């Protein structure tokens, strides 16, 4: 079959909402776009553990500590689901991780902002996970099967992340004057970076939308961002707090909130590696990887040893079930 014919079969499947599976033929660019996007997504889950992990030992109560631990552990799981989905496209786990460590692969810029106070942990759950959820809900319908399935699993777990964040801010918003100030300060610092999570404006591009045509993405950046603003602008009222944007206003005609312009210079500068914590985050990842080397080696050696001295109690899967 010619490449043109294969491409036609491929696009027909996409148009008919038939999911692509690992062994199906796909254009090289589709494979590469998916590898780039899924691996970036995986890296974001893993690097995203760092700003929150920063507060596990300092959470204000045992309850909050347990909740935060559970959330951070979930994020590790999300990273794993995504790395596995990525591997089905023919790239090894090791290559993917090497690309992160060498700086070749990116992760979401939001994790390059510092977590200065306890309220930041609440703000991350509410705003950062909230923004991620909108994207991930859309991605449960993405055209590549393993990615879509990973998203379904992730979405089931995310809702607790956002709710615990909001609830934690709710407690602060009803607390002392200092707690209220801390809550507002965290919202002020996390609001704009959260909006930036949705990426450049739709009008920034004149190219045809391959990712939309391939149904990797199903909503534009601006659509998702608007959904987010509409959702958060209402929720913030319940906290009795405000969002740091004097242009934020309900537009009756559009039936949406209008909002101010994002600082795009800051956006690109953080993407390019000049955010407050870019260096620190990558170094922490590399350190964890290097210091875990002996554990990986020891486990491999142990497995090898066990293989050479077979365990008689082991039956096949059916016997073990």
């Amino acid at each position, binding site marked *: 079959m010619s490449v043109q014919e294969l*491409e036609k079969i491929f696009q027909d499947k996409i148009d008919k909402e038939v999911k692509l*599976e690992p*062994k*199906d*033929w796909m254009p*090289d*660019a589709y*494979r*590469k*776009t998916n*590898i*780039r*996007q899924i*691996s*970036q997504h995986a890296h*974001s889950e893993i690097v995203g553990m760092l700003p929150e992990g920063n507060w596990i030992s300092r959470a204000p109560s045992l309850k909050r500590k347990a909740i935060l631990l*559970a959330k951070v*552990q979930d994020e590790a*799981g999300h990273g794993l*689901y995504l790395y*596995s989905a990525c*591997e089905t*496209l*023919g*790239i090894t786990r*090791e*290559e*993917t991780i090497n*690309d992160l460590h060498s700086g*070749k*692969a*990116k*992760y*979401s810029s939001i994790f390059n902002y510092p977590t200065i106070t306890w309220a930041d942990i609440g703000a991350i759950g509410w705003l950062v996970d909230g923004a991620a959820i909108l*994207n991930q809900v859309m*991605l449960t319908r993405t055209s590549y099967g393993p990615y879509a399935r990973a998203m379904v699993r992730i979405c089931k*777990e995310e809702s607790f992340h956002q709710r615990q964040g909001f609830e934690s801010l709710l407690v602060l918003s009803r607390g002392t004057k200092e707690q209220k100030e801390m809550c507002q300060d965290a919202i002020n610092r996390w609001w704009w970076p959260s909006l930036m*999570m949705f*990426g*450049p404006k739709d009008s*920034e*591009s004149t*190219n045809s*939308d*391959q*990712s939309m045509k391939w149904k990797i*993405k199903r909503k*534009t*950046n601006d659509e*998702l961002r608007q959904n987010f603003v509409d959702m958060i602008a209402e929720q913030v009222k319940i906290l009795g707090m405000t969002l740091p944007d004097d242009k934020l206003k309900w537009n009756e005609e559009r039936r949406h909130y209008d909002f101010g312009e994002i600082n795009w210079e800051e956006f690109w500068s953080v*993407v390019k590696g000049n955010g407050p914590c870019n260096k620190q985050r990558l170094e922490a990842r590399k350190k964890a990887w290097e210091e875990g080397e002996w554990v*990986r080696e020891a*486990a*491999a050696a142990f*497995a*090898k040893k*066990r*293989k050479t001295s077979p365990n008689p109690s082991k039956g096949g*899967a059916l016997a073990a*079930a």
Partner: protein
Amino acid sequence: MNILLRKFYYGDIPEDKTGGNIVSKDTKSDWPLWEVFIRSKQGLDHKHAGSLHAADAQMAIENARDVYTRRMEGVSIWVVESKDITASNPEEAGELYEPAVDKVYRHPTFYDLPDEVKHM
């Protein structure tokens, strides 16, 4: 095919030389890939849940416990090394499933019975 992707969406950060090379599968890592199957409830089938890397089967089960059953999603886990799974080839799907295509009489709806016949 030469498509230049210039528009970047959420979660797809622009970078000229970002990721995406497919190189050889030759890797130093000694931890093989395992497929994980989970029985969510007694009486139900094991269902494919995903995959993970582990040094051996025991570790694969422990990792699967941590990754796929954090919210009591399972009562039993099977793991099998991915390399031991043989999959049918999607390109041969046509021929492979062809024998079933023209056998409508295998379905109960093929048989027209009078309405008076009950419980059938």
